[in-house]
């Protein structure tokens, strides 16, 4: 059992939890994730680690309430317990001095992006950050991003704050030289970033979120095609070379269980009512 020691409501649908998990807090690195299960009947869901405090023995996660399990998670408060919290899983991102690094984060994953940025800064990189969201209401951690980056750009899908969409990235790429790009956010955003950086041959690391079940390499639910070869994202990733990922296949596989997830939600609301 893992205790929740802090909870922050970031937007109407996005929440941050600080969870007591001392061993994981000593070990987890940017790019790794946790698999959690709230209760005995619960699903195992993967969530990226967005920070650790080894001294306090805590791990930070940031998540969006999109379905049954994430909504259940959002209902928990300080002092409540999560039944299972297996972390860290997956490979850490490669932290080193690349030179100038462009970090693009979207939506709820900006928390995870900042965990990465801190490490990249410490390794001596110059950091240019783009933070995006659906609209201004969903932009999170702007102050922290400002403090940690050498340059910060803001983008929203509807243009309610900052640039509208990611078109402006083309110009930025024309103007400046980047040694590496890291992106984490919705799959469509990561795909777009990879497509935009491809012509410039800038190495681009994406973080993939296929459906996972065990997340220890035993089921293959998470398989993705990278450079023509089948990889298991949970143990071979979740980070991959964005220029080699078959995004069409990934997106199709991510949708496979949507009808069932809807059933779970309907059942859930009936239960609640």
């Amino acid at each position: 059992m893992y205790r929740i020691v802090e909870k922050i409501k970031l937007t109407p649908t996005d929440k941050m939890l600080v969870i007591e998990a001392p061993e994981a807090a000593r070990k987890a690195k940017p790019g790794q994730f946790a698999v959690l299960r709230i209760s005995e009947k619960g699903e195992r869901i993967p969530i990226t680690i967005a920070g650790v405090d080894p001294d306090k023995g805590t791990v930070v996660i940031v998540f969006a309430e999109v379905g049954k399990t994430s909504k259940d998670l959002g209902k928990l408060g300080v002092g409540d317990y999560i039944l299972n919290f297996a972390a860290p899983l997956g490979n850490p991102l490669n932290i080193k001095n690349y030179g100038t690094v462009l970090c693009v984060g979207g939506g709820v994953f900006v928390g995870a992006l900042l965990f990465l940025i801190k490490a990249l800064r410490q390794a001596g990189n110059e950091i240019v950050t783009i933070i995006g969201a659906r609209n201004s209401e969903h932009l999170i951690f702007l102050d922290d991003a400002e403090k940690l980056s050498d340059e910060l750009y803001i983008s929203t899908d509807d243009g309610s704050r900052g640039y509208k969409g990611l078109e402006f990235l083309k110009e930025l790429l024309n103007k400046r030289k980047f040694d590496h790009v890291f992106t984490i956010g919705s799959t469509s955003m990561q795909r777009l970033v990879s497509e935009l950086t491809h012509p410039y041959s800038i190495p681009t690391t994406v973080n993939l979120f296929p459906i996972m079940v065990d997340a220890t390499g035993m089921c293959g639910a998470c398989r993705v095609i990278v450079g023509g070869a089948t990889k298991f994202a949970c143990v071979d990733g979740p980070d991959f070379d964005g220029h080699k990922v078959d995004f069409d296949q990934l997106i199709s596989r991510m949708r496979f269980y949507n009808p069932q997830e809807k059933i779970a939600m309907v059942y859930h609301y009936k239960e609640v009512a």
Partner: protein
Amino acid sequence: MQRRNTQVEMPKQDPKERIRNFNEVAKGYTSEMAVEEAHRCLNCKNPQCRKGCPVEIDIPAFIKLIKEKKFGEAIRKIKEKNALPAICGRVCPQEEQCQKFCVLGLKGESVAIGRLERFAADFERENGIINVEKYGSDGGRVAVIGSGPASLTVAAELAKLGHRVEVFESLHTAGGVLMYGIPEFRLPKAIVQSEVEYVKKLGVLFHLDATIGKLTTIRELFESGFDAVFIGSGAGLPSFLQIPGENLNGVYSANEFLIRTNLMKAYLFPRYDTPIKVGKIVAVVGGGNVAMDAARSALRLGAEKVYIIYRRSKEELPARLEEVENAEEEGIIFMLLTNPIRFIGDERGNLKVMECIKMELGEPDESGRRRPVPIKGSEFKMDVDTAIIAIGQTPNPLIQRSTEGLKTTKWNTIIVEEETCQTSIEGVYAGGDVVSGAATVISAMGAGKKAAKAIHEFVMKKRLKSGT
């Protein structure tokens, strides 16, 4: 009592009934049936059956006790050698082991040793007579990775010898394949958990959610004071066919299908949160226990037609005989000497058609079985909306990847010394599927016993040297 020529049948759920539930298929002997079956044993002076048992249970002795209705003593006799009899009685391939050597089997039917073992174990559990002796704790500290049958055996044996044992399991439940792979209708999960509870009562500490190689490494385990480490991480990495279309939606590894169903209880969706999608026509590729389990689960989850697609003939099916018979009774359709060559999907990436080719048996291969060869021009297509690949598993890779100096084969199995199960690293032992490749519960337990003995000797010698 008159001695029967044939085995006492074990009562089973009616096939029409059972394909609609996940309750156990075989119901087990009553005490009358067990005594009647026990009377068939000739109590040979030189019992052949024992030779076929990888853990050398004194088979004639326990059967004699059942004959005398001393059921409590019978189970104690079994447990001298086998800590998990309720499980082995259900899942061992007895026809390849003890029963194969039974002299009655030469002319007619062997004694139903497995069913008697199961009866004795169930009798003990149902009557609450499990007694756990307390053991001293003057041994060393041993870390056991994984919690399948190999690890449970090592943990129990070492706890009894006075060692402080801690188990590290990456999933949220202990039991390995017994929990996540073998379905409820063949091995009820409550039985597995009661065996795990027994190991806990011996004083073994279980850490769940603990993936070695990620949360801690083997080196760190030694640094934190463990004297020895046992690796029982199993063979859970599913192999795929490597044919076109294999990543379409609707193509599962058997492991995904079974983990969703058993570990996550998707058959109780939406009361349990994890869903599973099963189409109308399901093709399971493979012929082992895993394939039978996947096929029979698919049927129970609502599939209308379930095929087993196997590239050799019926004789070569590696599954337990009883499970093949059960599958046939339940209406699983066997398409033998057939191999898939391509999966075809629709515009949304969902599986629609499987293309196969017919096979014939050629010369024997390295495994001694006749090699299947494709028949030119025999390709044909069949409509399927779910395919489940059950063609084998290789070892879980995380430990091999994170442990420097650990020698492995090209199949990623860990190399050990035959007699002691010691790996290339001093103080690190390994056994079960991670060493042998996917095998059986009882062989994993046999390896666990050997390893426990060697670990005990190693730790005691180490203690003696350091004077603690």
